[in-house]
């Protein structure tokens, strides 16, 4: 493999995802006459905005070699917190937003610190976070509370009107902004490079002088803040707060990230791939809605099949990539083993 082809080859998963999406869209457009419209596309963005926002955070976490199971619960906590803060405690919406994001940031930082400082697996730490956030949401209230603040009505009316009745809504704009910002942060900053370095090898990253602890804390902080933002968008979308909202979103987000071509073992992936992964999941749902006779469970089965397809594809490419270099690696592995004792 020449270097040039290999820098192209890391784009293959994202390209594959994009092709799958375009093919899917084509199939939909051929099946349903009204499908290929700007309006459908805009609705796709609006309906999946909250998922897109958390999935961007999840992309950072997974590329760094971790996982965050708490995001769905954080969304649930966020919506009920906002509903109570705005409706019951009389906090102005924007102040409530700011307060919420601060709480989420502290929550994420605490999880990151626990992972780093106590050398614990992210899976189980964020599982505790998942219980904690959902439990706190339940404690706040188990009712679904409508949010009637003016800002909410205003924001949900506010949209950029496009041709054919299509509307670029505030949630959609928020998601596009987060995706764009996520791309800049991950691909163009020192922090982003550190995230990849951590996913490549935590030990090497440390030896190269990267502050592994600080980066880990920041990554989980980012994920939780984006989950909080997603909660804000979700509450705008539904104009209410409910402690059960966002159940299972962590799975959808992980699935979107994997379908988007990010390696679950870390080190590789793109925010754009995740964005397309979210759109594919939305597309499946839209297809089912358009069809009318198909049942909702096909969405889950299709997602599972896609997951299997992409994971199998990754496993295959990894296998192929390792094959030609096997000579060198086995030799050096043996030499390592021999050298380790000296």
């Amino acid at each position: 493999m020449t270097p040039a082809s290999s820098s192209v080859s890391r784009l293959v998963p994202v390209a594959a995802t994009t092709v799958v999406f375009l093919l899917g869209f084509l199939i939909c457009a051929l099946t349903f006459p009204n499908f290929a419209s700007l309006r459908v596309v805009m609705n796709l963005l609006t309906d999946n905005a909250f998922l897109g926002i958390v999935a961007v955070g999840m992309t950072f976490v997974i590329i760094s070699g971790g996982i965050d199971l708490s995001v769905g619960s954080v969304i649930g906590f966020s919506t009920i917190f906002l509903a109570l803060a705005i409706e019951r405690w009389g906090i102005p919406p924007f102040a409530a937003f700011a307060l919420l994001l601060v709480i989420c940031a502290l929550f994420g930082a605490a999880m990151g610190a626990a992972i780093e400082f106590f050398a614990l697996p992210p899976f189980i730490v964020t599982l505790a976070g998942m219980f904690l956030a959902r439990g706190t949401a339940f404690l706040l209230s188990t009712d679904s509370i409508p949010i009637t603040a003016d800002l909410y009505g205003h924001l949900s009316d506010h949209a950029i009107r496009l041709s054919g009745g299509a509307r670029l809504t505030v949630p959609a704009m928020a998601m596009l902004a987060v995706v764009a910002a996520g791309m800049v942060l991950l691909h163009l900053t020192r922090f982003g490079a550190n995230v990849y370095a951590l996913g490549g090898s935590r030990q090497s990253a440390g030896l190269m002088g990267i502050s592994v602890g600080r980066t880990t804390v920041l990554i989980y902080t980012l994920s939780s803040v984006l989950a909080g933002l997603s909660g804000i968008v979700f509450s705008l979308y539904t104009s209410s707060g409910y402690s059960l909202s966002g159940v299972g979103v962590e799975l959808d987000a992980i699935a979107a990230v994997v379908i988007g071509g990010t390696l679950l073992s870390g080190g590789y992936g793109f925010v754009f791939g995740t964005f397309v992964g979210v759109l594919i999941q939305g597309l499946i749902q839209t297809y089912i809605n358009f069809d009318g006779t198909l049942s909702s469970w096909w969405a889950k089965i299709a997602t599972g099949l896609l997951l299997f397809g992409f994971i199998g594809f990754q496993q295959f490419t990894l296998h192929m990539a390792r094959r030609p270099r096997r000579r060198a690696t086995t030799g050096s592995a043996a030499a390592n083993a021999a050298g380790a004792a000296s």
Partner: protein
Amino acid sequence: MTVKLPRIGTAQILALAAILAINGFVSPQFFDIRLQDGRLFGSLIDVLNRGAPVAILSLGMVLVIAMRGIDLSVGAVMAICGAIAASLADDHSLVVTLAAALGAGLACGLWNGFLVAVLGIQPIVATLILMVAGRGIAQLITEGRIVTFTDPGLAFLGGGSVLGVPTPVVIALAMLALTLIVVRGTALGLMIEATGGNPRASALAGIGTRLITLAVYMWSGLCAAIAGVVAAADILGADANNAGLWLELDAILAVVIGGTSLFGGRFSVVLAVVGALIIQAMNTGILLSGFPPEMNLVVKAVVVLVVLLAQSPRLASLGLIFSRRRS
């Protein structure tokens, strides 16, 4: 060292006893057991009965985790097998129904094991696939409805009793005994602990780690199937949306509380079941004490944190430094 180390499991049993004692304190009737229509009733029986599905799941999960794996799909497999059992119960004999449901569980386990052992996919990713798709498959089987049945044979598995003991408890005990026979009556337990403790050394010692991995995931699938059948029999129907929902997390938690490390190696089947009972006793206790049931998750989170900190290698070394400084 002169202090004799406590026997393994003391902490878990003490924790369970303490929680039961607290339950008895907040609800004086907690330990009352009465016999009614040939079946035992009471809060304590309730803990056992409701704890049975997670206890059964933990029997499979503990082996998977001891092999350095994890099985996220058990909740979804429960839903699939419950759906199969409920759909077939009224038109087929109990044997056929059970064979289909348990066969499906084994097939799910085989799938997971294939992905992990043969394709070499990391367990958390491999079982995620079935976790996502499985619930959809269950809904496909029930066609999105809650499928009910009236077959008394199947219903007995959820609501009946044997010598006064609720059937789910009997099934859980039988599965516990069977698991013990399978892992401790054969060399499987030793090989699992060796492989989880040091996969490279175990492979060099001639242990067939791949086959054992397959077997362990299949056992987990079988346990999930049994738990799913019991759960369906309990409510006389299958709810593909909610059956077994999040129980994989409870099962993992039960195993971790039972002292088996997420990094594999030594495991205890019995203590995993004790872990499941601890979780259920807390749930019941919170209910009885009049706290809102919403407290459950917060308490669970605290328990996870405590167990995590107790297992953290970093904390152990910190404690060592601290005690050395003080001395």
